[in-house]
């Protein structure tokens, strides 16, 4: 995440930052969406920033309502999906495997 630069409009998030977030989140958003989302996300972030005003320095964070650590089960063989079931929703498959687009650049 790049350093936050003050937005001339006084907002907490700029259009350029929203574009960066979209890239990180693998969302090929359009220019029109960027215009719309930048304003909406700025309003939402300004509102949720109120959590910063709560005095909570000595408070432990809660990540989960049920205090769980590790949950174990017996290590026993049980039926799973067949190869055919696992591939049943695949956009493309070949020789019993998921077929995916190339993951390396041309130069690799």
């Amino acid at each position, binding site marked *: 995440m790049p350093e936050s630069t003050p937005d001339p409009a006084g907002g907490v998030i700029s259009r350029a930052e929203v574009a960066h977030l979209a890239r990180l989140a693998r969302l090929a958003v359009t220019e029109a969406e960027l215009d719309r989302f930048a304003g909406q996300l700025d309003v939402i972030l300004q509102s949720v920033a109120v959590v910063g005003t709560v005095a909570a320095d000595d408070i432990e964070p809660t990540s989960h309502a049920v205090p769980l650590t590790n949950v174990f089960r017996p290590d026993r063989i049980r039926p799973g999906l067949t190869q055919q079931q696992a591939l049943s929703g695949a956009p493309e498959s070949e020789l019993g495997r998921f077929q995916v*687009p190339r993951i390396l650049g041309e130069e690799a």
Partner: protein
Amino acid sequence: MSSSEADSELIRLTAAELAAKIHAREVSSVEVTQAHLDRIAQVDPVVHAFLHVAREPALAAAAAVDAALAAGDAPASPLAGVPLALKDVFTTSDMPTTCGSKILEGWRPPYDATVTARLRRAGLVILGKTNMDEFAMGSSTEHSAYGPTRNPWDTTRIPGGSGGGSAASLAAFEAPLAMGTDTGGSIRQPGAVTGTVGVKPTYGGVSRYGLVACASSLDQAGPCARTVLDAALLHEVIGGYDPLDSTSIDAPVPAVVEAARQGAGGDLRGLRIGVVRELGGEGYQPDVEASFRAALRTLESLGAELVTVSCPHFEYALAAYYLILPSEVSSNLARFDAMRYGLRVMPTPDASAEDVMAATREAGLGDEVKRRIMLGTYALSSGYYDAYYGKAQKVRTLITNDFTAAFGVADVLVSPTAPTTAFPIGEKVDNPLAMYLNDLCTIPANMAGNTAMSVPSGLAESDGLPVGLQIMAPALGEAVMYRVAAAFEAARNAADGGPLIQRSNGLEATV
């Protein structure tokens, strides 16, 4: 009596009444199922509660229940043979599961959710899959990629969300029972605005296995019904430990059916009911507050002692929720990567995997889902993590502490379920923050993980639309919550001369 008159009586019965008739073989499950399928064919073109109607599988499941009963077998459960509408977020091996999203259009999961499997085993008849805000993100069902669901009380208005399809199917008499999921109010708020009953069980009380994740630390599946007893009967079918869900609570399901039957007697003497000071005032529709005050007088007349409690950090619950939820969403929805199932968009014939992911997610996900993914990505990024996500987690602790203190002086807490009645379709769809305010009262229970429900508390004076009373109880405190809800429901029915839902609604005029 003509068959259509007999059908229209069947669809207005409660699940408990239908089960009694089916098990006594006065009527067959096939007849009951057919009556509901006919009703769906009649009204769903207007209501749009269903994304998929499973006519043949439903009739086959009903016939199997009838055959077992004819052979002298005991019913598989107290609800065997009763039809049910399933939110399209539970995986079903014989029906599509889309979560209201284009990215999963036509997807057939290779397995059943634990909830689906338990419903089938108990002999419930799954009528189909109900509409929802995409991936359960929304409070109006307008964020479904397949178009909005309409509120049967007034078809120009929203049915709540995200489980608007399930709630509307009940209010439209398309199904006597439905299943929902509640991450920030998605069972309770639709229940409130459609005049139905919706329960968010204690976190971990109902398995999340096969429930497509929104925010894993908040999601909880629960029953939707037209009466408190019906919700309790369904709760006992779906609840209980599941080794396939590592957050499942390994404890007996609270005896909610017995509690609902006891509560219907109307005696709440000895119970302390806490009124949460912070859940009311500015932003609340005046006649929602009037309905709430009338509900308090009713509870008092049943013998309960009212106490005012303060939960000072509830004020920050909405803000903390809209940091924690998007953070979990941004992580959970990373699985929709166009590789193993669902939509794949190839922007160019030799596009890289990364470009395919970005193009697919852009085409397959709607605005609200994109907004929340980006918000979560922001809140979790280095430099902002402590100020946003970290701080929200601390607020979550403070909300839990508020509940603990309040439950020290009260057996249950009450509030309005939602700040307003159902609003017009389109009114808030472009204003995310205004939409988020619908969840003001319901979010605290998701943050702390305790149980809460909505029960109809009458109609608002100004618009004649349903208002819900929220009842909250400690973790695994469902029994006392159902007891209070059943007592309140019985008192309302006595005062109103019967359930108000039977007198609805705007639908008959439009179909």
